[in-house]
């Protein structure tokens, strides 16, 4: 059995490697090159998913050492229950995304650049898979960096377009920041354990280990897009091609989650305070993420902010697991950790689904602005149906999978309230109410996303001329939509098969009840009600015809929430009036505007950036630009190093 799993694993990794190399070696412009490469992606992802499944359900650990790189550092592939879940995520999303990409990749760009896109996509998947499978810190960091670099190039795919360069720069800085924190964290960890193995013999709890944890937590948080380190997400996700956005949001953020869960479970023995810190970061991201998402009119920007929200929910689950395990409640701890992990899986499914369908819409309308869409449900009916499924899943409605994850989190909070001490209770009530708000705002947000994008009259010519996406761009997301429904309805059975007996409602029964009731309602109404139907124009208060200009806009839709939460949005309404007469009776003209302050950018990022600039301008003094000066610098540094090392040894 283990042999078969390893065989599948390496077949999958090899296929992805092949998919990376092939389009670079065969420098041809025609489609078959990309098709073959994408078939390799699809097969590779499928193999990885199939390899992950038996490990996930039987909880065995599979590992293989390939090379001895250096003394103490082996190149080892380790697949245990935790990593198999994330490998499964990668495999499933990778497969659907590869199928989607058959059609999507052909949507523009020079053919050679398309080849590069396909190649880099394979490399991206491969490096993410290797991070998850890494057996030691060195491997983890190397592939982490490979993941960062390959995704950076993918963000810059369309680099001539406006704003992409800035997005790329932002992403580059943030992703390097994440690597730097991880680097320091791993060095500190090595100092504690004296081994490069990722998982130490027993969990660490010393003060040094706490410092290591803090660095790792920051590194993973930056990569996962936790507020306040989130700013790269709403830049990079809309900028990259949609098949890549799906991978970044669906898989890459989960790789960061994997790192954190690994650290929390196996590397460190954390106490209440660390758990509370993770929880607070999680809640902040969840609530602010969805509040910002609601305001967005860029459809991919909205999805990016919603990813921040979901990562926040996942982090909160992890934080709760730490808190409950410190309080000696292993069952609740397991429940919240499973909630976090199940939500990671779910979010990977529905967010990739949403990014893919949003990508089809953007490809059909050539705009990302929701205010220029509308009426697409008639022009792109299948895409609309798939997006709607994703929206129902992400808005957490039963019996789809998003609901089950959130229900588990709610239940762990509800049960927790019954047992903990008053102070913790305050924390839990705080978390509970903010989660509830997050959940409800997510529903509102996706009513807006689906309603403004797909329903009613087209709001621009671009939307009028939109056409349904091609078959591959429907099949890819359709796989994910099916899985969203299947894993939701089968959630109880899945957890039983995994060996967890959770206090969850049986969604299969609920789902059947819904179907039976729906059928009964349809039959009764058909039998009793009048079937007369008339189609006519919407009543427009006596106007001759209704058009897109009279509809409710996306901005208008979010206005009540923007007003209620104006202190968070920092909305400023400005009205300037000029008068014709000194008594201010006759108005000559009025200018009004609403501005939203970008809080984190203005108060956190820019000061840091300015500080960095100031420091670097100091350094600039030493940069004369002549070669001999630089040689002198190198010489001086080497002398200092030698002296320093000699002093310490």
């Amino acid at each position, binding site marked *: 059995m283990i042999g078969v799993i390893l065989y599948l694993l390496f077949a999958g990794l090899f296929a992805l490697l092949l998919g990376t190399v092939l389009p670079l070696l065969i420098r041809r412009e025609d489609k078959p090159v990309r098709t073959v490469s994408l078939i390799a992606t699809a097969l590779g992802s499928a193999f990885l998913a199939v390899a992950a499944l038996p490990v996930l359900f039987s909880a065995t650990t599979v590992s293989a050492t390939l090379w001895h790189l250096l003394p103490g550092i082996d190149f080892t592939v380790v697949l245990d229950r935790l990593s198999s879940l994330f490998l499964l995520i990668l495999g499933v999303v990778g497969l659907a995304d590869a199928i989607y990409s058959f059609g999507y990749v052909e949507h523009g760009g020079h053919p050679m650049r398309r080849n590069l896109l396909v190649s880099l996509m394979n490399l991206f998947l491969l490096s993410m898979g290797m991070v998850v499978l890494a057996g030691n810190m060195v491997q983890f960091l190397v592939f982490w960096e490979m993941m960062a670099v390959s995704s950076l190039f993918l963000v810059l795919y369309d680099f001539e377009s406006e704003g992409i360069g800035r997005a790329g720069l932002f992403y580059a800085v943030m992703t390097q920041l994440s690597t730097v924190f991880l680097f320091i964290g791993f060095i500190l960890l090595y100092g504690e354990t004296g081994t490069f193995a990722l998982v130490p013999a027993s969990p660490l709890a010393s003060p040094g280990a706490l410092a290591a944890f803090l660095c790792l937590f920051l590194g993973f948080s930056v990569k996962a897009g936790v507020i306040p380190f989130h700013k790269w997400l709403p830049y990079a996700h809309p900028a990259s091609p949609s098949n890549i956005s799906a991978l970044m949001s669906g898989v890459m953020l989960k790789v960061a989650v994997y790192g954190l869960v690994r650290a929390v479970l196996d590397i460190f023995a954390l106490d209440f305070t660390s758990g509370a810190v993770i929880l607070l970061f999680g809640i902040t991201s969840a609530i602010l993420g969805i509040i910002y998402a609601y305001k967005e009119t860029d459809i991919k920007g909205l999805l990016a902010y919603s990813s921040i929200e979901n990562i926040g929910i996942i982090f909160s689950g992890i934080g709760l697991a730490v808190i409950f395990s410190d309080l000696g409640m292993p069952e609740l701890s397991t429940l919240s950790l499973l909630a976090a992990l199940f939500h990671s899986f779910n979010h990977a499914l529905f967010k990739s689904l949403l990014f893919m369908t949003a990508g089809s819409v953007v490809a059909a309308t050539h705009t990302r602005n929701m205010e220029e869409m509308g009426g697409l449900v008639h022009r792109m009916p299948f895409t609309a149906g798939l997006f709607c499924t994703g929206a129902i899943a992400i808005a957490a409605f039963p019996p789809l999978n998003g609901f089950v994850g959130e229900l588990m989190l709610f239940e762990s909070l509800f049960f927790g309230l019954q047992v903990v001490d008053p102070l913790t209770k305050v924390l839990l*009530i705080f978390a509970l109410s903010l989660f509830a708000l997050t959940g409800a705002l997510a529903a509102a947000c996706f009513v807006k996303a689906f309603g403004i994008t797909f329903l009613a009259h087209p709001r621009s010519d671009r939307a009028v001329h939109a056409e349904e996406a091609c078959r591959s761009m429907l099949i890819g997301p359709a796989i994910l939509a099916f899985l969203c429904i299947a894993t939701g309805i089968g959630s109880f059975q899945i957890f039983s098969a995994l060996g967890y007996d959770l206090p969850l409602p049986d969604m299969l029964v609920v789902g059947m009840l819904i179907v039976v009731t729906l059928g009964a309602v349809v039959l009764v109404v058909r039998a009793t009600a009048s079937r007369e139907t008339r189609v*006519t124009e919407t009543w427009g208060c006596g106007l001759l015809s209704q058009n897109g200009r009279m509809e*409710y806009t996306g901005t208008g*839709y979010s206005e*009540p929430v923007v007003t*209620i939460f104006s202190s968070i949005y920092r909305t400023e309404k400005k009205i300037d009036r000029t008068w014709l007469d000194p008594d201010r009776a006759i108005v000559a003209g009025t200018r009004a505007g609403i501005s939203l302050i970008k809080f984190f950018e203005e108060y956190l990022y820019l000061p840091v950036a300015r500080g960095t600039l100031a420091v670097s301008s100091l350094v600039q003094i030493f940069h004369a630009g002549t070669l001999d000066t630089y040689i002198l610098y190198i010489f001086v540094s080497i002398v200092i190093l030698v002296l320093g090392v000699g002093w310490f040894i």
Partner: protein
Amino acid sequence: MNGPFIIFALLNVGFVLLISPLFMSLIKKVKARAQGRCGPGLFQTYYTIAKLLRKETVYSSASSWVMRVTPYVCLSMAVVAALFVPLLYVPEPVAGIGNVILFLYLLGIARFFMALSGLDAGSAFGGIGSSREMSLAAVIEPTSIVVLAALAVVARSLNFLEIARDSAGMLFPVSATMILIGVSLFIILIVETGRIPVDNPETHLELTMVHEAMVLEQSGRNLAMIEYAGAIKQTLLIAILVLVLMPFGLVTELSVAGVLFAMALFVVKGSVISVIIGLFESSMAKMRLFSLPNLFIIAFFFSVLTIFIEVFA
């Protein structure tokens, strides 16, 4: 699914379907009397639904399947939700039916589709209603969840059926804190059913353009289904309030006499709450949309208080 549960399912859903329109008209009657009018008869809502079912359904040419599917979804979700709150007879819970969070989210699906159908016809009225409804729903949600959490803490269960089993046969609420929860639940009932001071179910003027504006484009059999779903939702929320404040009368053993007695008793209890709702509505003025969060904070405060009282008691 065992025998008693199937009997419960049929009994509960049947009774909810039968009785829901009655409370709707009763509240209207009370309000009319408070204003010095005579008001409609108690069976008016039944007549209205029957009339609407016979009428032609008009769709906007801009609308899609969303508009056509929404009424069926709304009514089905209300009917499924009717399985979660026992009115007469309480069986052993099966497969997690009765879970309070699931109940809340089932009602959420109906709202989700209704909000989408508000946008579907492309009329600005529907958009306003849809946007406001979702915003209010978002702002009330923390309160609803914390109230349910308080209920779960007090009753030590997350399941309406279990809560009802514990309290069935008791003359008074299980604990004094239940009265605090009752106050919060009443505010949630007012918000969820779109009544004054949050919304006004009688009009769709600009000031009260929330729920009624959202369903403005619905007509004929579809409107009948949505109205019926609204009536069921109201009955279920009343039933939860009854469960918390006046639990006596629920039977845990099946018997014809017991069930008939419970039916009569529920009609009386439901009527009492309907009259209170009617009087409450008559004595209040519509609040400004943006001052509504203050009202929700009251309910939130009461439920947090409940949780704390339970800790120190």
